[in-house]
């Protein structure tokens, strides 16, 4: 019993160690890949531009819900004008980065993991090695960097659409004064709130992309293995995102 526990503990530790090792390999290869920007550009398109629709739609609805809930809550204290502040701080610091990262893990992370897993299963990665092409440089690092670059941009778009969603419900439907909505927001939201959001989404971008490419690259080369890699990408990403979110929030207090 204790032996089993110890074994699963060392397994987890080994997994963590190999993820960190993989990250160092990716970062070490980054400078050379940066010279071939068209590879990265293609991956920014795949994981960023193609996630745009889902991010924008979710952002709109999250913002609208914030507008509605915030209005109902603030109305009790007679301070509906603070709606802009409440919605913006909530979106920029918390909901924008976190929901974007969760959606990104579901939309782009799974695509990355299954693509790499299938490459592994059909021996494409080994074939590249045979041709003296480093699959890490040619395939993995561009996907990783594409995700890292795309995430903060997606989170920013999410927050802006969300603010307009809150404005739509709060100002257009519920009748909060438009001037005080924006001016209270401007006087209460500080630059450090925005910085915190950007830092968060950057860290989430690194975490999500790393988990996705790691799971795909080391997937068991079977149909089942690829499926399992995809599933564990989403599960691990979600847990890691929320854990890191707590850490970064605490660090910024």
């Amino acid at each position, binding site marked *: 019993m204790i032996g089993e526990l110890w074994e699963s503990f060392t397994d987890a530790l080994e997994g963590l160690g190999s993820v960190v090792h993989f990250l160092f390999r990716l970062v070490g290869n980054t400078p050379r890949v940066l010279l071939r920007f068209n590879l990265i550009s293609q991956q*920014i398109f795949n994981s960023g531009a193609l996630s745009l629709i889902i991010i924008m739609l979710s952002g709109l609805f999250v913002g609208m819900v914030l507008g509605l809930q915030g209005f109902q809550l603030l109305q009790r204290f007679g301070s509906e004008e603070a709606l802009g502040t409440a919605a913006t701080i909530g979106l920029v610091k918390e909901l924008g980065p976190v929901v974007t990262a969760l959606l990104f893990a579901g939309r782009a992370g799974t695509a990355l993991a299954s693509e790499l897993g299938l490459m592994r299963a059909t021996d494409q990665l080994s074939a590249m090695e045979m041709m003296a092409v480093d699959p890490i440089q040619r395939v993995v690092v561009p996907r990783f960097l594409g995700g890292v670059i*795309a995430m903060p941009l997606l989170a*920013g778009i999410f927050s802006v659409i969300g603010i307009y969603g809150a404005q739509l419900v709060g100002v257009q439907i519920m009748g909060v004064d438009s001037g005080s909505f924006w001016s209270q927001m401007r*006087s209460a939201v500080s630059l450090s709130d925005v910085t915190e959001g950007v830092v968060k989404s950057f860290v989430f971008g690194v975490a999500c992309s790393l988990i996705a490419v790691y799971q795909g690259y080391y997937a068991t080369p079977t149909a089942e293995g690829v499926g399992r890699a995809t599933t564990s990408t989403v599960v691990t990403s979600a847990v890691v995102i929320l854990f890191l979110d707590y850490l970064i929030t605490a660090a910024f207090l």
Partner: protein
Amino acid sequence: MRKSRTLNLGTGSFVLLGFAALFFLTTQTTSHGLAVFGPAHYQVTAKFDNVGDLKVGAPVSMSGVEVGRVTKIDFDSNEYKAVVLLRLNERYSKIPTDSDASIYTQGLLGGKFIGLTAGGADTYLKDGGQIDFTQSAFVLENLIGQVLANFTKSKADEQAPARADPKATEKTK
């Protein structure tokens, strides 16, 4: 070739949109504005007995017009006073040295801001200058305390002659 062109176009517009969003967040939702290329400014200090919950970034206004912002709030442990650093726009450089600064509240639950009232001196505030006449923040608890104290005092005054009265009547008898 054709395909890579549309792809790059897609990536380019996505990146542009993303940076536009981040730009919007930093300039439109915060009071930061375009402070990187912001207007020329000068800084003056003002010492207050109590700043209440005045925050860094709070506006400084004259006659309701925003002329600057609070950039720093510190505590002077020699005088036991709060030192507030105000960054004023260079356009409003003709503020008399004997102007006074008071801390007001926006609305009932709004944030605090500093209101300047122009004095009559011929010399104007310069960079590094100090506003000598200040009025502290209005702290609700102190006001309630004062009202209660006045209230109980006036009640005691009313009761005191009433109690004294019987004695007075006795003496006259």
